Every structure is written in structure tokens, then in C-alpha cells.
């Protein structure tokens, strides 16, 4: 998914947020759209009301991001992995494989999109007249 921030007076794209882990097909209301344009000031309201459940299973759709970084100071993160390794000694996977695996938890599509939107609002909060063009381009 690509979210382009557009200045309506010049039609210039001022910033692009690329989210390869996400598709507009993940959201029921957008399934028949090629692109969606939303005003920045109503973006969050629109996004939190999206239905991101699989139409057949009625279960939320998930995405597996390449990797997540844990919000911990670096030294603490190293200590945590070290304790994890000590605990996991009886597991068949190596400590590196385990570390790699736990850094890739599945995240709900709705959680991912909301996080991106909140970041966008933070980066352009003074520009409520701006628009956002959302597509899979």
C-alpha cells in the first residue's frame, strides 16, 4: 500500500509512505477501489472504522512484516535476547533462529494501518487541508 500526502493547492506530493506489508484489498470497504482520496483531518476516523476481517472466515486479516523492532533501549534488548536464549536451550531451533522468529509476530492489518496513519498525522499535523491518496501502486 502507498499513502501519498498531497498539497491540494499545488497538487504536489509532499511525502510518500510505502507500506509493502499492507494492501487496500485487506479492507472490505476498499475492495473495489483502485485508489482512495481522504482529507487528512478525517483520515483517522475513516481508518478506525474500516472492516479488516476476511469475508469468509470473519477473522481479522493479518500481515507478517519483515521484522519489528522492540521498543527497548539497545542494551536492554541485548539482555532480553540473552535471557531468552538461556531459557530456550532445550528448543530445537538455534538462538539466532529464535531471535529472528520472535521479531516477526503477525500483526493485524487494522493495527498496521492505524499506526501508519497516526505517524502521518504527527508528521503533517499543521496541514489539515492536505489530502492522502491511498493505493496499491
Amino acid at each position, binding site marked *: 500500500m502507498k499513502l501519498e500526502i498531497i498539497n491540494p493547492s499545488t497538487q504536489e506530493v509532499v*511525502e510518500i*509512505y*510505502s*507500506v509493502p506489508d499492507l494492501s487496500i484489498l485487506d479492507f472490505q470497504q476498499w475492495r473495489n477501489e483502485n485508489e482512495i482520496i481522504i482529507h487528512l483531518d478525517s483520515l483517522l476516523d475513516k481508518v478506525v472504522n474500516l472492516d479488516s476481517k476476511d469475508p469468509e472466515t470473519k477473522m481479522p486479516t493479518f500481515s507478517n*512484516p519483515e*521484522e*519489528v*523492532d*522492540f*521498543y*527497548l*533501549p*539497545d*542494551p*536492554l534488548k541485548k*539482555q*532480553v535476547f*540473552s*535471557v*531468552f536464549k538461556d*531459557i530456550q536451550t532445550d528448543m530445537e531451533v538455534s538462538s539466532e533462529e529464535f531471535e529472528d*522468529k*520472535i521479531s516477526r*509476530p503477525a*500483526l*493485524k492489518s487494522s*493495527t*498496521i494501518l*492505524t*499506526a*501508519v496513519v*497516526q*505517524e*502521518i498525522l*504527527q*508528521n*503533517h*499535523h*499543521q496541514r489539515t487541508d492536505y489530502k492522502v491518496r491511498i493505493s496499491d501502486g
Partner: protein
Amino acid sequence: MGKRLLKLDEFIAEYPFWGKWEVSYTDGTHLENCNYIKLAYITIDESDKTAREYPILPFTFAPVANQDIKSRFSELSSKENIADQARKLIWDQLADSMLRTGLLCPKFCLMEEQTIELEFLEVMRQLSKHGYLTFVVDTGALRRAISSFLHMTLRTVPIWTVVPVFVMTEIQQQVYEMNEIWKKSGRGTNPNIAKYRVLEKRPQVSCISRELSHIRLWRPVEILRSIPQHLDQIKIDSKNDRLIIESLKDFKQSRGIQKGVYLLTGDKDMASLATLENQDSLHISVPSMRKEMSSVRYDSYNKRWLLTPVHYLLWDLAQVFSTIRLVNEKLSRTYKLVYYSQARGGFFARDVMEIQEE
């Protein structure tokens, strides 16, 4: 009831969490140990199997309505102003916890050479233009763990944290006052509801000492000992603010550095004053809490996903609120995270907690 002393890394690695948890607190300085104030609900929408496979999972944090906190205080104290002030103070402390643990992103205002930049991504881009950065920090910036945030965000820029000695004396004063309150409460046996303001003091000690310990393990921290002589003459309430600004100027002059040195402060007036005196500053403030906050954040500067471990948030809350109780009715499980315990042995700089399991 099982008790165990543990460090944060052990807590994260050894205690998987899933399901819905009610979070409440009690504090021996101002609440009887049977009285709890409900703070929030934490939901980890996963199974026990997933929680064991992925010990750090996404969660949501939903603070209780701020009116509920007020009502609970009203039940415990007949003084209406206490309930109202306590409600506000607790709400502010929760927001600070969210900020320290990454559920909220700080709002920045970069003030340098007649320009002001308020948008996060642009602030990060401007700061990263420097080959290295020096932040002269005040108590508010340290308490909100902004140095850690900047270390985590500006990963390729070496950052030097400078703490004016006056900031350390402020912390020393808070330690003294906290100890006095704790002693007067008979070490938790004789609480006084009017002492709820300890919730404001405790993070000035516990969270700052954790922040300093973390940065020290990672990047340089310098305690700046210079004391400008002429300031002995000044008799104003905001003397510490003035001393911090003068420390910043002294630092730049004595090291011969002009660029990339910022006052990092949570005080708008101090940031403005520094700018008027040609000193660059980075002001930080806390955004409003939402009804529900996610532990997943997108960091557009580094183009990566950030995930806060629920343990980190709980640890932080215990350091502010003294004893945090977690109840999962469905699993019939209760944990208590206790800040005042033998674990710490009276040393506030020791980042250890007691966990009790029922």
C-alpha cells in the same frame, strides 16, 4: 502467594502475557493496602500458544475514564479537591508512562536561529544533519526518557547527553522528600490520602535513574559540574532554569562547539528563553492519550515497525504507582509488581522489582 525478585529483562523473557488484564494500583503512602484504584485495561488478543511462541506480542492499552478515577478517590476522601487533583495527576502520569514506553510519540518543537519546526519527521531530518549531537537535558526531558527516544530514533548520529549538576540536585531533593513521605506513612502502614502527590515525585527518582542507567550502558552521559559564579546573586523561583541555560552556554564556550548543541527541555518558557539568548533548543511535550492506544508504532524516519513489550509498560507503571496489580479473570490469574520491596534494598538506582503471583 509466590514472590520473586527480578530484573526487567527476566520479566520480559519469562512471563508471557495474553488475554485481557485489569490494571490497578495501590500505594502505601496514600492508600490502605486493600484499596486499589483502577487505571486501565490491557488486551493481548492472542492465545497462550502464540504467547509462548512470541513472548512479545502487540497489545492495546485502554485507560479507564478519568471520571472513574475521580469517583474512586471521592469514595476514599471527603475532600472534593483531592479527588479532582488526584484524577488529573494520575492522568498525566499515565500519559508520561505511555511516552516513556513508546505507546505515545513525543511532540517536538525545534527552535533554532529564528526558525521553529514542529513536524516530527522534519525535526528528525534536521537533527540528523549534524555529525553528532549534544543534548543538555533538564529534569522533565530525563523523566520522560526523551534521550532514549532520540537514541532509538537517530540511530546513526552519535549523541552525547549532558546533565547539568543542578538537575541532579533536583533529583536529590525529590529523593529526600519521597523518603520523608515514606517514613511518615510508617513505611506503608499508616497511609494518608493527601499524600497522593508522591505520584508526581516518584518518577522524578525511579524513572530518571532508569533512564540514566540505560543511556550510560549505551552512549556517553556527562554530569556538568560548572557553576556560574554570578548566579549566586539571583533570587528568583526559576533559578534552576537559569542555571541550566547558563550551563549550556558555559559548555559550548568551554568546548568550543557552536552547532549541534541543544537544550532538551519539557519547559516551554525555558525553551523560548534559551532561543532568545541564541541557544538552540528542542522542546518536548506529551500528546493527549487516546481512548485506546496500540503498542505498535510506525517509525517513518527509519521506516520500521516498533513494538513495545507489555512488560516494559507494566514495569514503568510500577515505578510510578508503587504497586501494580494485574488481574485476568478468565485465566484466574493475579500478579502484583511491587516497587517498594526488599528487592531494591533501599537503593533507588537499583532497577529491580518484586513480582507476586496468586
